[in-house]
């Protein structure tokens, strides 16, 4: 029965790890608030912006987080460049903020190649941000490949939704 105990212990251990993640969130929220304050200080003309988090404001381009790609491609298309640039500017002026760029692919082809392709997609966003002055210490790229599809049908309408990088701020 030692094994069952071991499994239980491992589950508890992992649950404890998950718990740590949860505990980190208030800290991140504090960072977010200071970030919002810095934003307010940087833009004194923006009277509405004192309380609103620009990252959550649906009228702000920073609330947009997804870059979409053509099949087999990982270059950031022109229509998504203003959005990536806006996030790069935000990160460059908010040194405490951190993002994960999560790359995804559609379900076709090799799972392992898709992990690599998803990484390449996330990396193309990271490199754009690097050029605009964001250091790697503020960006972690990770790929889910085809493993975490947002849309689950087996045709182009879902596939195009899943060929995507998401910009996720720490604490979100």
């Amino acid at each position, binding site marked *: 029965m030692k094994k069952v105990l071991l499994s239980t212990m491992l589950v508890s251990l992992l*649950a404890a790890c998950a718990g740590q993640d949860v505990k980190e969130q208030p800290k991140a929220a504090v960072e977010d608030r200071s970030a919002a304050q810095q934003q307010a200080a940087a833009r004194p003309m923006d009277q509405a912006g004192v309380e609103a988090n620009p990252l959550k404001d649906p009228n702000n381009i920073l609330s947009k987080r997804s870059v979409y790609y053509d099949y087999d491609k990982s270059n950031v298309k022109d229509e998504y460049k203003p959005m990536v640039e806006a996030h790069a500017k935000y990160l460059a002026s908010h040194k405490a903020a951190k993002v994960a760029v999560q790359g995804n692919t559609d379900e076709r082809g090799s799972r*392992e190649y898709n992990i690599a392709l998803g*990484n*390449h997609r996330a990396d193309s966003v990271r490199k754009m941000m690097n050029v605009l002055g964001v250091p790697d210490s503020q960006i972690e790229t*990770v790929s889910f490949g085809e493993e975490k599809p947002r849309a689950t049908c087996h045709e182009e309408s879902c596939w195009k939704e899943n060929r995507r990088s998401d910009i996720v701020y720490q604490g979100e």
Partner: protein
Amino acid sequence: MEILIMKPNMSRVMYFRNFAAALVCAISLSLFGHAHAALTIEIVGSGANQIPVAIVPFAGEAALPQGISTVVAADLQRSGLFKIVDSAAAPFQPHEQSEVNYTDWRARGAEALAIGSILRLPDGKLEVRFHLLDAVKQTPLAGYSYVISAAQLRATAHKIADLIYEKLTGDVGVFGTRIAYIVKSGKHHELQVADADGYGAQTVLASSEPIISPSWSPDGTRLAYVSFERKKPIIYVQSLLSGQRQVLAQFKGNNSAPAWSPDGKQLAIVLTRDGGSQIYMINADGSGLKRLSYSSGIDTEPSFSPDGAWIIYTSDRGGSPQIYRMNTSGNSVQRLTFEGNYNVSPRFSPDGKSFTFIQRVSGSFHVALQDLATGQVQVLTDTRMDESPSFAPNGKMLLYATEISGRGILAAVSSDGRVKQRLSTQSGDVREPEWGPLLKSQ
């Protein structure tokens, strides 16, 4: 997030250890094992020249919970290389050589016949005797006897099928091997191992996050795999004997595509710690990381040649994913595939003379085979969404994942493309198969 790490029943390996440990295994089997339906195998297509063979029901097997002759016949039939002669219709079913009427079996079309008996010994063990006879020459081809426990009946049947296969085809039998694969039902993912005939499925790891790329250690005692349980791909190595596992690679970014070196001491893995996906070598205990490939694009899916001298892999350095080869120092890089613009997931054949891979042909993905000496490519399958091909240890069959009516299933195809099988479970998607090695203890 939920993770359950399990120790599957490795009874075949366990015989050679001790009984107490086997008992613990039996407990884990009763806790976890029975929940899983066996993989069902459907045969589509057959070999060109099938050998007609009669597998006569063994004396004494009707009284046992598990017969031998039916398992032997099913194994041989599944290979596509044999035609099973109906022995139930025979007026007399021999169990000893002296009882065989060869003329009668020849008249029924049999070129060979297997006969045998199972005798319960005073200590409760079973003595299985078996003879393979040449019905044409009227001579014995092989004869063996085994003393086993009732739990070993299926394994013994596979061993007998392996012997018949070897005697009649000249190739090594793989009926006693195991396979690993992933079952996904909703958000539930399980890494399972099962016998090559789909029976005895055992859960190795259960998780609410994806698991991919299981890879057997060459001695069949450990599995390396990639788990997303910590929200990104991390490589683990888990012992099938103890159930214990350890992180093999957990570097910044992605950690994936583990492949064991033939001596089991090292693994080739793919990391993004330096930016793009590149191939690294790491010791099986997680020490001694060393970068092997240097390209500005994607290098992934490494597979060792059987002699350990080469690694074949997928790279998009030429603009589209193609198969390349390098030596295990990362030098002598050479492109191997030139047809089409999507060739991925290469695996060396056990004899090292060819490799299998997935080729995209007009939007469909097929299992293909390329001869290393001639460069000649043969597409083996007509299924359309094929992934993850791997060779049986004798090189005669390939196991792969595909999709039928939107559901993930496993399929197998012979290396000549003639014999085709489909393996499916009652529910869920099955994917990421890898055929395990021949175990030395078998």
